[in-house]
């Protein structure tokens, strides 16, 4: 990739600074004509993370992103992007932020390349002589180099989406915000987007990606924010979120009934499962469970923590379980699974 | 200051400034306070005005016409809004009567005078010998629609039949002026109440005149400078060369003087015109042109004449006298009678005075 060097040169965007936040909001609230779109959102996007913003349509994802980028004035609350307040200092920070918001917007009578050149002209970080190169690199990165001279109106839905992605990647970024980036993409296109996100992540660029597709977020993100009806219902590292709820240890053992009895004697809740037993870890740790079983002479073939799928975690966190699952079933591209 | 407040301030101040500017440009110019000037006697003011020579100046005069004239002769002469006048302070002058899409240009210098009509593309030259210079110049000046000249002539004509007084001061085109008021003597049978003439204090050039009729507070006719700048003018302004493609007519001064004798003081009122009476109740009698605007010719004339009759019957009232019968039309400042035998009598006078004048005209002719 030709842009690798450029992005590697972004100062101090290193991984694992751990405590630094690329984006943060405090008590963010937006009311549109009496309708509360976003209410009391405290968002934290760690630097270097890929944060998936998950929520059904109308849950306030896009509104939150638009406020983050200074496109919409919040009704209440504070926003910091890369350490500076937005929208007050938006002009200082936005050059380092790439974004694709609410679908791609381009002029149909210009070619893909000319559309990008027009946006590149407005990029403060690009010097005059770099415009052509930056546009070519961005086009190549999203796999549109071959269709660069085609008029935008002749593009397919997927090509349009990719051109939008290219415009977000015109200049070296420290934060890339993508609103539903895989909308309208075929399976191959979806994979391409995942690859681009992973690449950005490898280079230490923070990515905030919104989606209503659980599998999408599960596949690409390190962190998750779950929004429902304008309120953050959960946020944190993906692993933590998946392990939350009631932690369970799955133990494969031929001595199921004995094992259950032994554990119950030690006041550890457990029950029989098809090929072994399930142990509730609420009051104990996996090590203690295995030690107890081994001492009692039960054979342990394998022990592993049960991971709840994100789908289950999500359903647990939002009210409209039925709606959500319905939406997931109909909209998730099968090939993604 | 939040963006919303800033936006409101920007919109509010922008609209205020813009509207204030528009309002400012819609205000009539010269609304200054009346200047304080040393007192002057009416007679002295008139005498000095008639004696004054116009200095070199460039000015713009505007006409406000509330006469409400129907299509009668003379109406066309007032079909303009702006006159620009240039004067070199001596022999030469240039007057441009600006109409909306055409122009009448009069240029006069020591040796010749030109009139150019852009609508007809005709240039009329008047030349003269040394001998009849004086007469020729007089004629040339009469043709010029210079407002100050017109006002001075009016004062001269009305002086014997008027009570003259000075009524305060005024500021006209940014210059300090005396207001001279001419009121008809009680013996005058006129519909006019008074005529005021603003006379420049420094140069004694008339700057504006307003004609007031009985029963109205606003002038029915007002012609005055809105801009006046004293100073030498470019000599090129007073030269005229007819452009290629224009129809050029040349008139010798003595021919012109002869023509003038036939149509003295008649202006546009046709070839044969006479006046009855003097001063305020002067009645001008002429031949009614068939077209009403002085241009009817050939086959249309009959048709247009019938049109005119039709119009007259609608807006006028029948009148009879020793002269025969005709139609009387009233305007804001006076009236006119169009007789059946094709004469027209007009003046700033009541109807009976017009009838009497026509009777007198008949008597003269017999």
């Amino acid at each position, binding site marked *: 990739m030709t842009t690798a060097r450029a992005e590697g040169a972004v100062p*101090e965007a290193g991984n694992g600074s751990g*405590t630094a936040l690329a984006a943060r909001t405090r008590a963010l609230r937006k009311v549109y004509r009496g309708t509360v779109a976003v209410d009391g959102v405290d968002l934290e996007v760690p630097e270097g993370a890929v944060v998936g913003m998950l929520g059904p349509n109308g849950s306030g994802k896009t509104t939150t992103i638009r406020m983050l980028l200074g496109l919409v004035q919040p009704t209440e609350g504070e926003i910091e992007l890369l350490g500076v307040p937005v929208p007050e200092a938006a002009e200082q920070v936005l050059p380092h932020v790439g974004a694709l918001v609410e679908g*791609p917007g*381009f002029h149909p009578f210009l070619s893909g390349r000319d559309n990008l050149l027009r946006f590149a002209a407005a990029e403060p970080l690009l010097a005059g002589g770099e415009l052509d190169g930056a546009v070519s690199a961005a086009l190549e990165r999203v796999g549109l180099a071959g269709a660069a001279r085609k008029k935008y109106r002749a593009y397919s839905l997927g090509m349009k989406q990719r051109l939008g992605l290219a415009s977000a990647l015109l200049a070296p970024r420290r934060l890339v915000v993508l609103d539903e980036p895989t909308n309208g993409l075929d399976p191959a296109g979806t994979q391409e987007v995942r690859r681009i996100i992973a690449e950005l992540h490898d280079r230490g660029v923070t990515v905030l990606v919104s989606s209503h597709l659980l599998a999408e977020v599960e596949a690409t993100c390190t962190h998750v924010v779950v929004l429902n009806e304008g309120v953050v219902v959960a946020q944190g590292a993906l692993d933590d979120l998946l392990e939350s709820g009631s932690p369970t240890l799955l133990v494969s053992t031929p001595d199921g009934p004995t094992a259950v009895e032994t554990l119950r004697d030690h006041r550890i809740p457990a029950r029989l499962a098809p090929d072994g037993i399930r142990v509730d870890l609420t009051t104990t740790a996996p090590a203690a469970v295995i030690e107890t079983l081994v001492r009692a002479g039960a054979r342990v073939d394998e022990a592993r923590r049960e991971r709840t799928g994100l789908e289950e975690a999500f359903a647990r966190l939002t009210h409209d379980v039925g709606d959500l699952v319905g939406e997931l079933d109909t909209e998730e591209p099968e090939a993604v699974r | 200051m939040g963006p919303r407040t800033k936006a409101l301030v920007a919109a509010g101040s922008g609209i205020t400034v813009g509207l204030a500017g528009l309002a400012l440009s819609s205000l009539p110019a010269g609304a200054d306070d009346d200047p304080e000037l040393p007192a002057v006697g009416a007679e002295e003011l008139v005498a000095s005005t008639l004696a004054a020579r116009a200095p070199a100046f460039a000015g713009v005069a505007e006409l406000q016409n509330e006469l409400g004239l129907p299509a009668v002769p003379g109406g066309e002469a007032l079909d303009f809004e702006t006159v620009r006048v240039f004067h070199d302070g001596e022999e030469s002058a240039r007057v441009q009567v600006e109409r909306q899409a055409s122009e009448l240009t009069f240029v006069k210098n020591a040796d010749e005078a030109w009139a150019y009509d852009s*609508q007809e593309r005709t240039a009329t030259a008047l030349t003269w010998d040394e001998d009849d210079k004086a007469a020729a110049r007089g004629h040339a000046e009469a043709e010029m629609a210079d407002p100050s000249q017109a006002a001075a002539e009016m004062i001269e004509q009305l002086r014997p039949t008027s009570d003259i007084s000075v009524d305060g001061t005024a500021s006209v085109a940014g210059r300090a002026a005396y207001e001279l008021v001419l009121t008809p003597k009680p013996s005058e049978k006129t519909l006019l109440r008074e005529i005021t003439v603003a006379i420049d204090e420094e140069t004694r050039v008339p700057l504006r005149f307003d004609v007031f009729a009985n029963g109205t507070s606003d002038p029915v006719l007002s012609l005055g400078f809105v*801009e006046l700048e004293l100073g030498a003018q470019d000599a090129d302004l007073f030269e005229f060369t*007819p452009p290629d493609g224009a129809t050029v007519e040349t008139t010798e001064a003595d021919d012109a003087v002869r023509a003038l004798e036939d149509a003295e003081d008649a202006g546009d009122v046709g070839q044969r015109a006479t006046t009855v009476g003097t001063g305020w109740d002067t009645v001008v009698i002429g031949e009614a042109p068939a077209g009403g605007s002085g241009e009817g010719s050939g086959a249309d004339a009959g048709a247009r004449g019938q049109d005119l009759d039709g119009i007259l019957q609608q807006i006028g009232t029948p009148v009879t006298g020793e002269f025969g019968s005709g139609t009387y039309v009233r305007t804001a400042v006076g009236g006119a009678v169009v007789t059946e035998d094709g004469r027209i009598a007009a003046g700033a006078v009541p109807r009976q005075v017009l009838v009497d004048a026509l009777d007198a005209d008949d008597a003269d002719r017999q």
Partner: protein
Amino acid sequence: MTTPHPAATRGPATAPGPGVPAELPARRRAPLGRLLRAEVRWIFRRPRTLAVLALLAALPVITGVAVDLTLDGGGAPVDTGPPGAGPGASDGGPPIFVTMAASAFVLPLGSLMTLLMLLLPLTVAMASGDALAGEQSHGTLRGWLLAPVSRGRLLLVKAAGVLVVALVASGLVVTSGMVTGLVLTGTDGLVSMSGTELSMADVLGRLGLAVAWATLYLMAVGAVALAISAFTEHPMVVVVSVLGGLIVSVVLMQISALDWLHPFLLPSSLTSLVDLIRDPVSFDGLAEGAFRAGCYLVIGMSLAYARITTKAG
């Protein structure tokens, strides 16, 4: 790609307080010239713009040829629909616009006056409509806002783009008219309304002044159109509003009882372009028209600014 990045999994959800990210470099902005070039390139690659400009260039040619044929063929001046003849020129023979309509001096000015009544303002309204409302509806305005281009600068660039359209459109009309006139009648007919023959340099100067004045007039229309454009997402709304405003203004100008209102109406300046055919040129009307256009410009731009700085991107 399902493996979470090891470094990033150390969650900040439990972090006691957010750290401060590496400091940002000082604010930088894309150079204004580059934005202007990009805007102008965009405007003149739009097929619609090119079509209207072609029409504007063709109209003076058509008028000139038609008048020339009529005058030559019939021998008598035409007496219908003189271009640019205002009310009041209806009787008493054709005005100069007809008798000399094919000349290299009167044809460009007459064409400019005629087209300034409707077609040129509509061209500018169309450009203004595309500049904000059109970009908004395509979602392309967001691209520049995110770059970022500050909203004030965005408006400045958009207004400059409209200015270029106004200048090019009126320049094109005058140039096309002049070239047509020169081809048809040569340098004959460079005559002022006051009967003076004018030098070519003088004529060029006057035509240049006409273009400058027309540009300012059109910019006043453009500023109001930009304000409307900032309030809507439909470029058509802008064009229709401007068209409606012009028609209402012209109707109000015919009502003499509303004399007091006339100085507030933008089109009442238009007749003063005739003064450029007089000699010497009388600048009062033109100056008044320019001042009036300036007032409209201030009102339009401040409204557009107020709207664009508060609207959602």
